[in-house]
């Protein structure tokens, strides 16, 4: 059976794409940039802190431990551009993040993204699923994250096949373990 290695992006290009410079900000919490500063979004309209919170939120909504932050950030960085043009979006993001942070402050004595345990952050999200921000991030992510061609190999999805002659000679029927179950 033609089995794929679930990894396709080489380490080198991965590092090359990440200019961490502007984000070496001191306000950055350890949960994001301290342990994984592999993404390069530099936000202009959303504060770096809010940007990092949104990325953490995105990961907590669709947690894939084999995906780097940059794939989540790719969706979130769109908000920064949009917030530049759309004041109400910018306002909504700021307001809703404040609500989420104050809820987490109350319960876990920390801002949302500074909470170390995923279950606790998820607990805060669960209490805020009615938030328009939650709905927006989830809705955009379910399309944006999984429609990113760079992540497909990491799930074992090969994408476009017509140019390779389909799967006729590339394993459409090569399953080899059925007689063992």
């Amino acid at each position: 059976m033609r089995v794929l290695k679930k990894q396709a992006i080489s380490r080198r290009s991965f590092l090359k794409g990440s200019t961490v410079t502007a984000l070496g900000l001191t306000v950055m919490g350890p949960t994001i940039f301290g342990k994984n500063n592999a993404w390069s979004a530099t936000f202009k309209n959303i504060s770096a802190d809010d940007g990092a919170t949104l990325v953490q939120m995105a990961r907590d909504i669709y947690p894939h431990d084999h995906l780097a932050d940059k794939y989540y950030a790719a969706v979130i960085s769109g908000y920064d551009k949009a917030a530049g043009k759309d004041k109400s979006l910018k306002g909504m993001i700021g307001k809703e993040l404040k609500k989420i942070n104050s809820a987490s402050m109350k319960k876990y004595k920390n801002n949302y993204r500074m909470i170390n345990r995923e279950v606790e952050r998820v607990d805060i999200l669960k209490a805020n699923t009615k938030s328009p921000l939650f709905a927006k991030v989830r809705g955009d992510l379910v399309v944006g994250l999984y429609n990113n061609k760079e992540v497909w190999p990491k799930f074992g999805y090969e994408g476009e096949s017509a140019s390779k002659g389909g799967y006729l000679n590339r394993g459409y029927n090569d399953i080899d373990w059925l007689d063992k179950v």
Partner: protein
Amino acid sequence: MAKFSKSDNSVAVIIGSGAGGGVLGMELALKGIKTVILEAGGRHNPQDFVNDEWASFGQISWLDKRTTSGDWRVARDFSGLPSWIVKAVGGSTLHWAGASLRFQPHEWKVKTEYGNIKGASLEDWPIDHKEMDKWYTKAENHMGTLGTGGRERLPGNNNYKVFEAGAKRMGYKDFHTGNMSINSKPYDGRIACQQIGFCFQGCKSGAKWSSGYVSIPKGEATGKLEVRTHAQVLKIEHGKDGKVNGVVYADKKGTIHKQRARIVCVAGNSIESPRLLLNSESNMFKNGLANSSGQVGRNYMRHMTASTYAIFERPVYFYRGTTMAGIVTDESRNDPSRGFVGGYELETLALGLPFMAAFLDPGQWGREFTASMDQYDHMAGLWIVGEDMPQASNRVTLHKKFKDKFGMPTPNVHFSDHENDIKMRNHAWKQSTALYESVGATKVIQTPPYPSTHNLGTNRMSAKARDGVVNKHGQSWDVKNLFISDGSQFTTGAAENPTLTIVALAMRQAEYIAKQMSSKAI
């Protein structure tokens, strides 16, 4: 290619170029009848299709505003997308998977067969299986349907092999790789399937039948068929004699045109067809055209559907090869001892990663969901399609406020499951879960219905004028030169995917229209 004048009142006008409209257009042209197809979408060649789910959705799907109501989950999960159909030459036969099944004989007569079912508006079709037999054969030969006419079925892909192993363990008897209208060998000038796996996105190799690039060109070659693209019909007009005499349509720029007609055939799929009739109200037809019975837009059916996805310890790569690659028909019988009337089919199905994320468990998030997605390459899957109960209250209506870019009121699709639908769905989930567990599934996900791909019944055929919209030839009870030529004429939906039946009915209707025209009855 023919080009007819807009003032030519001797042409047959067909609205929509999908399964019904495209085939009717071909057949009328082959009979020498001057025909104009008006199609709201554009035209794409097979090479232009893209192996990319969302990009293809943007390229060919019908994206105009629609609203939903009722208790179906689609109204909650995809409130602006009640159905998934195509706006392009070929209609939804560009998206379709190719499963081409005949109705079972009893499914033409379910009112008789099932008796009175509370809340259901069942009727018998005014046609029976004996009469349909030759039309089915003609349709199968035209579409190159496998497993019929001596055409060999496709080899099974990985998804099918898992399914087949499970079917055997379940003791099922009737399973195979399906009666697909996809070439297993070169046929009708088109090549054999390359197992590309993007059948829903328009088959780039042309191995899959579509009215868009198979039927319509055959019609055009006669010099009797003109297909006008980017022509969305807004209204059907009639004269003082109560007969229709032309249609009003908008082109790409929004410019309004009129095309005169001797007869008009409506084939815009089961949401757009009733929308158009309702929007064609006049002083003479205050309730909408062809609607003296009040049945236009009612009895909307979408098949009882659902999916089952299973995760295995080892990889499957179910997306390799044909999207729909096999069927179990054992559950399609009518056996009320299961707690419901009618039956269902199990048909393998694979989605790409982007669509799987959107449809596996809509609205879901968190680790339970992503743990399943992480096993995408270890998944097998199937789609459940069964007969749903027609209900008068499930219906397409015109929205009171919203209008599309041409000023035409947008449609609202109201649907609630019948109790029978729910019982059947639960049974099918249970059986298909057991099927996958029998071959070692470690996790099984019961996926709710997608936006409707099978839209049926909103201008139904009936034996008596008061019970439906059209007679046994798809001819309006009220207006004799007005026809319904798509899936909206279905009296009931049967358990089978509808397209073969839509095509067979269009061929049968063409013969009737030709006779009526030559005897000057219309």
